[in-house]
């Protein structure tokens, strides 16, 4: 049995070698199908990972609360320190609440200057946002309480204006405020502030930024870190009720604030990813189907063209099932080659495209193996009918065929 399969493989490979160009064109449908599917899935995975990393940058199990306009001409009332404390005290399941403000300023150091974002925040903010201080330290209680001029830098600023190695303990000027660098945060992929580079930032104690940069005690938004054991929906409703009461919103009026739940965003992304995967799978199915029909078409032409050859094989004693197996093997081997070339092509394309649109390249072995197996199955399905026709030829007619 093995001898027969080995011999059949050999015959199939010889046949493919005899018609190299035609074999390549035959399998082109499979090549393109497989390459397209794997590239799409790989880029999809990259995109998902990218988005998920962004969401992770917002912190997990976190609500972000900010004022929003109900009337386009009226600015919504800001939050203040009292709101933050009320949320912290009155809603069960809340672990920490951190108010924050943002502004922009020019940072100066050693004759270098750089336009950057300035963030006023507390230590709770670092925890809620999973911001890690990789060098130096976070703010002390005293620094927070007194609004001292200390700052923690994002890696981008360090790169832009600190030419020398020493960063910690250096004095620098942010706008009109001089401050001392006490820490540097890790490289991050996202920020809450719209369009800001999370790495291009100076973080100072909330009070320092409120007093010395903005000039009021308003809180622009706050972050609520909650215990995931509590039901997020119920907590969100309690939060809405509390804030409506504090902001004196009448029944029937819209909320003049917005709550973003990172878990909800995560769910949505997963849902979108699921739909995308389904769509890609369907497109994959269709494109491979078209490729398979192409294989069947050429195999049928090939059987007709090689009628005489089939006659010779039958005359010298090939059994019907051997002829069938030979043509089937040819189709399967062609499809497998197509699958392999497609996988190679997809690898190159994914790496190139991921680089071009700045997505991570995530190799998914399952998709690659599945595509290969699927191409082989295509070979069996679409190779069977032509192979069956070849095996049913009458040797005398086949030998006479011109």
């Amino acid at each position, binding site marked *: 049995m093995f*001898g*027969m399969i080995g*011999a059949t493989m*050999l*015959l199939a490979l*010889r046949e493919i070698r*005899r018609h190299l160009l035609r074999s390549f064109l035959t399998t082109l449908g499979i090549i393109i199908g497989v390459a397209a599917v794997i590239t799409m899935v790989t880029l999809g995975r990259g995109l998902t990972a990218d988005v998920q990393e962004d969401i992770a940058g917002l912190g997990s199990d976190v609500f972000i609360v900010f004022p929003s306009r109900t009337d386009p001409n009226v600015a919504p009332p800001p939050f203040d320190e009292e709101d933050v404390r009320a949320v912290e005290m009155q809603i069960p399941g809340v672990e920490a609440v951190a108010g924050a403000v943002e502004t922009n300023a020019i940072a100066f150091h050693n004759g270098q200057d750089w336009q950057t974002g300035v963030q006023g925040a507390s230590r709770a903010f670092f925890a809620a946002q999973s911001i890690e201080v990789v060098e130096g330290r976070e703010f002390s209680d005293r620094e927070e309480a007194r609004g001292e001029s200390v700052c923690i830098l994002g890696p981008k600023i360090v790169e832009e204006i600190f030419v020398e190695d020493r960063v910690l303990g250096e004095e620098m000027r942010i706008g009109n405020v001089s401050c001392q660098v006490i820490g540097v945060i890790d490289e991050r992929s996202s920020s809450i502030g719209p369009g800001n580079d999370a790495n291009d930032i100076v973080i100072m104690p909330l009070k320092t930024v409120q007093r010395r940069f903005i000039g009021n005690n308003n809180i622009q938004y706050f972050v609520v870190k909650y215990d995931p054991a509590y039901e997020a929906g119920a907590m969100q409703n309690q939060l809405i009720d509390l804030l409506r009461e504090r902001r004196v919103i009448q029944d029937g009026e819209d909320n003049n604030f917005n709550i973003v739940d990172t878990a909800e965003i995560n769910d949505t992304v997963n849902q979108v990813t699921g739909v995308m995967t389904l769509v890609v799978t369907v497109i994959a199915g269709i494109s491979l189907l078209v490729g398979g029909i192409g294989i069947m078409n050429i195999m049928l032409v090939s059987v007709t063209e090689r009628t*005489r*050859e089939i*006659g*010779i*094989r*039958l*005359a*010298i*004693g*090939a*059994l*019907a*099932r*051997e002829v069938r197996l030979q043509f089937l093997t040819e189709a399967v081997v062609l499809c497998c080659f197509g699958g392999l070339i497609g996988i190679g092509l997809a690898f190159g394309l994914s790496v190139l495209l991921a680089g071009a649109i700045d997505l991570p390249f995530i190799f998914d072995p399952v998709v690659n193996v599945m595509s290969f197996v699927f191409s082989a199955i295509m070979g069996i399905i679409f190779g069977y009918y032509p192979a069956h026709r070849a095996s049913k030829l009458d*040797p*005398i007619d086949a*030998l006479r065929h011109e």
Partner: protein
Amino acid sequence: MSQPPLIELEGITKTFGEGAAAFQALKGVDLKIQRGDFVAVMGPSGSGKSTTMNILGCLDVPTSGKFRFRGVEVQALSRDQRSLLRRRYLGFVFQGFNLLARTTALENVELPLLYRGESKKLRREAAEHALDQVGLLPWAEHTPAELSGGQQQRVAIARALVTEPDVLLADEPTGNLDTERSVEIMQLLNRLNADGITVLMVTHEEEMAEFAKTIVHFRDGLVERIERGHKSGAPLEEHA
């Protein structure tokens, strides 16, 4: 002559088509062929000689009558059983050579052994031996397109020989060749016959039939006459 004949045809008829369009190609052929014979089958076209050869080659079955090959009743066998019979005992040579294009002489000759599931080493040895027998070993790696007609036919004969068949069936083996090449092929067949292979050949050329020991003349679907002991393969020197 006491042993049973290798091939025995008894009242063989063959009808193509049905009803009004039916055509009876063979109308009751009786023929016995002994092991080691060299038979030339002759006759005008439509006389039934090709149909007879197809039946003898186990490619076709008669409509009625009995065909015994090595004592086995072939007309009762299935398609695959007849394939196995061809694989084991028969070698075919065709008028049009019928080699696989873009495939070397060696690979062409190896082909029947592939279907027998022989090992690579044995295939190669046997194929080289067969090519050597027809004097084409130096051309083993050439494709048919690089060979002359006579050489191609010799490759085809090597392919028929490689399985060491009992019977070599040749359908107009010299039909596409000039006289000189034809004589070479006939001498080759003569030599193989002398080595013990039974040769059955269809031809319409008197000159080529002269090489055979027995000449069977067909006419209108029947055996018209048989010339036996014909020169006993003597004309080797005459033509050389």
